[in-house]
């Protein structure tokens, strides 16, 4: 099974930006779209954010219905906060109406 190390894709130990998440999504989606299992590895990272998880893992779940059968994680075992961020992004992706609601709430803040 292919292992995708996030740090090798984004070239920084800080997985903090939405755009970094999109890079991971693009690489991972090549395998997922071909029904190939992959491991996304968080090894070597120093920080992650919700925005990163949403743009990478959340978007995979949103784009490919069989993601839960093909995607595995490494490096989350000892970090409950990271684990929770990943789970939250999956939960959001499985409830697209919540994504819309959150995006709209943030948009409203920007325009207020």
């Amino acid at each position, binding site marked *: 099974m292919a292992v995708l190390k996030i740090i090798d894709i984004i*070239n*920084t130990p*800080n997985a*903090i*930006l*939405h*755009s970094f998440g999109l890079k991971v999504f693009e690489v991972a989606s090549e395998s997922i779209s071909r029904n190939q299992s992959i491991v996304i590895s968080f090894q070597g990272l*120093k*920080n*992650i*954010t*919700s*925005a990163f998880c*949403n*743009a990478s893992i*959340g*978007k995979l779940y*949103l*784009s490919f219905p069989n993601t839960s059968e093909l995607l595995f994680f490494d490096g989350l075992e000892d970090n409950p*906060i990271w684990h*929770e*961020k990943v789970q*939250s992004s999956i939960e*959001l*992706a499985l409830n*697209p109406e*919540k*994504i*819309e*609601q*959150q*995006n709209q*709430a*943030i*948009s*409203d*803040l*920007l*325009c*207020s």
Partner: protein
Amino acid sequence: MAYLIHKIDTLIPEDYPFVFCDANVWITTLKYFGSIVVNSNEQPYQDFIEAIINLNNETDPAASKRIKNRPKLVLTSILLSEIINAYMRNVAMKAFFGGGDTYKSKSFKNDYRDNPHSDFKQKLNDLCSDIIAFQDYTTYSGPK
């Protein structure tokens, strides 16, 4: 008194050693899902913060020599308070109550913050860890 306020999509981050962004820019950066479409409102903010992070991450010696500044994002206690307050009230609480009239009828303190069955603590911890994740690119100004 004149303030140095710039339109975000015309600002060159490299021109400044320090940049202060308001709470809404931070919330967009930390929490935006953006998976369906990137809203035009959010894109300039995403691009601006990305430019700052990329300047700080640049390791190529030739490119590094040409960089005028590697700007730090300034955080203050008032800004942190505003980020937390705005997000918890306008995004997290709204999501918890499903928005609409139900959300509008609820009290932030009584029905959300002090409600042991709400996700207030989880969302607050999550937000704080998102902010801390920017530690390499921020500088704190104010009382410790």
